[in-house]
C-alpha cells in the first residue's frame, strides 16, 4: 500500500466541530436603525446569499451551489462543482466520463436523476442517463445550481426518482460587458472562455459566449497514459427582454463539438484465452439546442409561462452511433385560490426522434423510432396556519408509449417553528420509466469461458424486453433547517427509500441459448426482478466565521440494500448496492485575508467502493477510500482582473474513483493537477 495522508474520517469530523465551536466567539450587534442613510451606504453585508432564502422555505432537501461557490472551488466543469453537494455521489471514471447520482445507484449509466439546464432536460432518452462530458456552460455565467435530493417528480417529471439538478444561468441583463478567461495546466491543458453582453434596446439584453477546454488523459495503475484525453468547444447566446406589459421573454441557444478518446475491451468469443480485444476508440459528440420562454403575470396573484425547446445531439463511438432530436413544449400556471391556497398546474409534451447506428456489439431495433410523451401536473400549497404550517399536495400524471399512464403523487408538510428553524417531512412516489434500450436494445456484455475442453465459450448479451416495466420508489423524508446563530446555518435530511421492480437481466425462464459459429449465444432479457431499500443522512453546515472567512461542511451517509429474486441470474444489484460510498465528507474553507485575495481550501473524503459491474477481472477489486485536497489562491491586482492558481487532488499523485463501464473496464486514476488562469472583465 502506498503511503498516503489518510486521517480517520470520524476524528476529522470531531476536529471540524471543535473548529466551529472555537470560532463562535463574541459578536457585536448594534441597532442599525440608529444609523443615517450615509452611514448605511458603507455597511458591508455579511449574511449568506439571499437567493437561497426562498428555498429555505421548501419542504425538500435542497442545496444551492452559487456562482461564488463554483468560482472559489476551482472546478472547471459542472460535475466537479457538484462534489460539494451533500447526498450526491460524483466519480470521475475516465478523463471524459463521470458517474453522478443522488442517494445511490451511481454509475456511468445512472438513470434515476433528472438534470436540467435553464429548463431544458439534458438526459439522453436512449438510456435515461446523462453524458456529463457534453453538458457544459460558461461557468462564470452560471447563477446557481439547485440540487434537490429525493423525488421531485411532481413539478419536474419522470426520471426525478432520486433527485433533480437544476443548472440556472444568469439573465443577459446580469452579464453585460466582456469577460475573458485563459488558463493552462498539467491536467487542464487549455482553458479559454470569452463572453460579451450588450444592450440591444431598452429592457432587452443579449450575450454570446464561446469556450474551449482541452483535458489530459488519466493514468493507468501502472502509471501509463490512459488514452482518454479529450476536448470540448462550445458557444451560445442568450437574449432577455421585458416588454412594456411586464411580460418576460428569454431566448437562448448553444452549440458544441467534442473530440474524445476512450480505451475499450471488447468481448470476443473467438479470441481465447482472454476473450477480449482492445480498441483505441476515437469518437465525436456534437449537438445544438434552442430554447424560448415567455412569462406573463395575469394578475397580482397569478402568472403563466410557456416554454419551447429543440435539442439535437449526435454521438458516435466504436460500439454504437446515436442521434436524438427532441422537441419539448411546456405550459405552467400559478394562481392563488382563496386566502390560503397556492395552485400550480402544467401541461407538457415531448417528442423524441432517434436514430441508431448499430454494430455487432450494441444495436437497437428498430434503428429509428419516434415517440411522444404527454404529461400534466397539479400541485396545491395550503397554508394550514399562516406562515407556520404548510401542506403541499400534488401529483404528476404522465403518459408514455412504453408503460402508458404513470401517476406520481407526493405529500409534503413544512412547519416553520420559528424564523430560524423549520422542520419538514414528505412521502412521495416516483417512477423511472423504461429507456429505449431497456425495450429494444441488444448489448453484448461478456464472454463466459468454456467450462470443459470440448465445450464452446458463451457470448452473453443483455437484450431489451417489451414487457419491461417502470422502476418505482416510495420515499419517506424528514428534514430540519435551522440557523442557531446568525452566522451559522445547518441543514439535516434523513431518508428511507423503498424501491420496487428494479432492473435485472436474465430471468431463468426467459433465457435463450442458440448455437452460433464457434460459440454459444446467450440472450438475457431485461426484467424487473429486484427490489430493496436505501436509507441515509445528509448534513450541511454553512458558517460565516468572520466577515472574511466562510466554512462549509457537507457530510453524507448512505446504505443501500438490494435483492434480486431467485428467478434471476442477475447479481448486478448486489454489486450496485456496494458501488456507492457509504460516507462522504466535503469541507471547504473560503478565506479573504485581504479583499483582493482569495485563499480557498477544499478537503474531500470518499469511502471505498466497488465497480458497478459484475463482469471482467476487476469486478471484485476494491476501489480504496480516498482523501483529497484542492487549494486555490487568487489575486485581484485591480478591479476586473483576477489571477488564480489552483492545485487539485494534492494529497496523492493519483487515485481511482471508478470504472467507466460499457467496455471501459480498465482501472484509471485521477492525477494531481495544477493550473493557472487569468480572468479579465472589460
Amino acid at each position, binding site marked *: 500500500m502506498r503511503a498516503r495522508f489518510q486521517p480517520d474520517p470520524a476524528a476529522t469530523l470531531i476536529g471540524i466541530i471543535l473548529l466551529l465551536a472555537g470560532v463562535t466567539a463574541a459578536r457585536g450587534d448594534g441597532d442599525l436603525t440608529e444609523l443615517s442613510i450615509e452611514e448605511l451606504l458603507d455597511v458591508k453585508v455579511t449574511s449568506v446569499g439571499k437567493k437561497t432564502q426562498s428555498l429555505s422555505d421548501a419542504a425538500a432537501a435542497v442545496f444551492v451551489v452559487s456562482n461564488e461557490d463554483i468560482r472559489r472551488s476551482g472546478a472547471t466543469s459542472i460535475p466537479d462543482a457538484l462534489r460539494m453537494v451533500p447526498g450526491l455521489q460524483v466519480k470521475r471514471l475516465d478523463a471524459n466520463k463521470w458517474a453522478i447520482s443522488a442517494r445511490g445507484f451511481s454509475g456511468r449509466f445512472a438513470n434515476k436523476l433528472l438534470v436540467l439546464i435553464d429548463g431544458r432536460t439534458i438526459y439522453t432518452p436512449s438510456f435515461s442517463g446523462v453524458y456529463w462530458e457534453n453538458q457544459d456552460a460558461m461557468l462564470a455565467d452560471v447563477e446557481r445550481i439547485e440540487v434537490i435530493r429525493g423525488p421531485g417528480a411532481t413539478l419536474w417529471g419522470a426520471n426525478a426518482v432520486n433527485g433533480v439538478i437544476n443548472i440556472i444561468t444568469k439573465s443577459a441583463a446580469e452579464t453585460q460587458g466582456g469577460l475573458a478567461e485563459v488558463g493552462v495546466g498539467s491536467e487542464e491543458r487549455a482553458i479559454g472562455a470569452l463572453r460579451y453582453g450588450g444592450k440591444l434596446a431598452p429592457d432587452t439584453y443579449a450575450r454570446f459566449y464561446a469556450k474551449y477546454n482541452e483535458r489530459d488523459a488519466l493514468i493507468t495503475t501502472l502509471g501509463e497514459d490512459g488514452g482518454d484525453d479529450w476536448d470540448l468547444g462550445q458557444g451560445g447566446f442568450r437574449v432577455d427582454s*421585458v416588454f412594456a406589459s411586464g411580460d418576460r421573454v428569454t431566448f437562448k441557444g448553444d452549440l458544441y463539438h467534442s473530440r474524445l478518446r476512450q480505451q475499450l475491451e471488447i468481448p470476443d468469443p473467438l479470441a481465447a484465452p482472454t476473450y477480449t480485444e482492445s480498441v483505441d476508440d476515437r469518437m465525436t459528440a456534437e449537438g445544438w439546442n434552442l430554447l424560448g420562454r415567455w412569462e406573463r403575470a395575469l394578475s397580482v396573484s397569478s402568472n403563466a409561462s410557456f416554454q419551447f425547446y429543440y435539442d439535437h445531439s449526435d454521438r458516435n463511438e466504436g460500439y454504437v452511433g446515436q442521434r436524438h432530436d427532441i422537441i419539448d413544449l411546456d405550459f405552467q400556471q400559478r394562481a392563488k385560490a382563496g386566502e390560503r391556497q397556492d395552485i400550480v398546474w402544467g401541461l407538457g409534451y415531448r417528442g423524441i426522434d432517434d436514430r441508431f447506428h448499430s454494430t455487432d456489439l450494441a444495436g437497437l431495433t428498430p434503428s429509428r423510432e419516434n415517440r411522444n410523451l404527454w404529461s400534466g401536473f397539479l400541485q396545491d400549497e395550503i397554508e394550514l396556519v399562516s406562515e407556520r404550517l404548510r401542506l403541499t399536495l400534488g401529483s404528476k400524471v404522465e403518459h408514455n408509449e412504453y408503460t402508458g399512464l404513470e401517476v406520481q403523487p407526493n405529500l409534503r408538510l413544512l412547519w416553520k417553528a420559528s424564523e430560524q428553524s423549520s422542520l419538514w417531512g414528505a412521502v412521495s412516489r416516483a417512477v423511472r420509466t423504461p429507456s429505449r434500450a431497456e425495450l429494444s436494445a441488444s448489448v453484448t456484455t461478456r464472454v463466459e469461458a468454456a467450462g470443459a475442453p470440448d465445450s464452446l465459450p458463451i457470448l452473453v448479451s443483455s437484450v431489451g424486453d417489451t414487457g419491461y416495466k417502470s422502476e418505482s420508489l416510495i420515499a419517506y423524508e424528514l428534514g430540519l433547517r435551522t440557523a442557531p446563530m446568525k452566522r451559522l446555518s445547518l441543514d439535516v435530511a434523513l431518508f428511507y427509500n423503498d424501491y420496487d421492480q428494479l432492473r435485472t437481466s436474465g430471468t431463468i425462464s426467459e433465457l435463450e441459448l442458440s448455437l452460433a459459429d464457434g460459440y454459444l449465444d446467450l440472450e438475457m432479457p431485461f426484467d424487473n426482478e429486484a427490489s430493496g431499500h436505501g436509507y441515509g443522512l445528509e448534513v450541511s453546515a454553512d458558517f460565516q466565521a468572520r466577515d472574511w472567512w466562510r466554512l462549509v461542511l457537507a457530510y453524507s451517509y448512505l446504505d443501500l440494500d438490494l435483492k434480486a429474486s431467485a428467478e434471476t441470474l442477475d447479481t448486478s444489484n448486489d454489486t450496485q448496492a456496494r458501488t456507492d460510498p457509504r460516507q462522504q465528507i466535503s469541507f471547504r474553507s473560503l478565506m479573504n485575508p485581504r479583499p483582493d485575495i482569495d485563499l480557498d481550501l477544499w478537503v474531500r473524503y470518499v469511502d471505498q467502493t466497488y465497480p458497478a459491474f459484475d463482469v471482467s477481472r476487476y469486478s471484485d477489486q476494491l476501489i480504496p477510500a480516498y482523501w483529497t485536497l484542492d487549494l486555490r489562491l487568487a489575486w485581484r491586482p485591480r478591479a476586473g482582473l483576477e489571477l488564480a492558481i489552483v492545485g487539485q487532488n494534492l494529497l496523492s499523485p493519483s487515485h481511482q474513483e471508478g470504472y467507466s463501464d460499457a467496455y471501459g473496464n480498465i482501472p484509471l486514476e485521477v492525477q494531481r493537477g495544477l493550473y493557472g488562469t487569468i480572468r479579465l472583465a472589460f
Partner: protein
Amino acid sequence: MSPKTRVDRFRGRVGVVAGLLLAWLATLAPALAQVEEAELSAAYLYNFSKFVHWPAAALSDSSKALVLCVYGRSGSAGEAIGALDGKFAQGHRIRVERHARGDALNDCQIVYVSDSERPYLSPLLRALANQPALTVSDIPGFVSAGGMIGLVMVDSRLRFEINRQSAEAAGLSISSQVLKLATQVVR
C-alpha cells in the same frame, strides 16, 4: 499493540489536533459586527419613512399611524422590518402589517414587496400605480419596472435606486437628501 492500531490512533490525533489548531487560530481573530441584508433593508426603510412627504389625504394628523406593509412571503426581512413596529417617524407611530399575495393594500403608506412576488411584479405595480404608497423592494429591476425605491447590492453593500417619476405620479415627494445618495434616479 499492533502497528495498525498505532496508525489509526495517529490518524485520529491528527484530525483532532488539526481541528483544535484551527479553532485556536479562529479565536485570535477579532470579532467583527455582523450585518444581514434583511436588517439593512429594514434600517433603510426606517430612514425612508423619515424623508418622504405624503399628501395630507394619505397621512393627516399625527394621531394616525404610518402603516408599513410587508407584502408576500418575507422570510428574515419580515422579521427585521417587524422590529420597526412602534418606532416614530415624522411624529407618526409606525405600524407594521403583513399582507399575503392578493390582499388589498389600500391603507399602506409604505409597501415593501418581498422577493417572492417577483413573478407578479407588473400587475402589482399597476394596481398600486396611483395610490400614495411608497413602494420599496430588492427585486432586481424594480425601479425600471415602475417601483419607487429599489435596493441593490453593490460590492457587498446595499445601495438604492429611485424612480422619481413613479413617486411624483403617486403624489409623494422624496427629500433631496435621499435623492442625492441614490445610485440612479429615474426621472
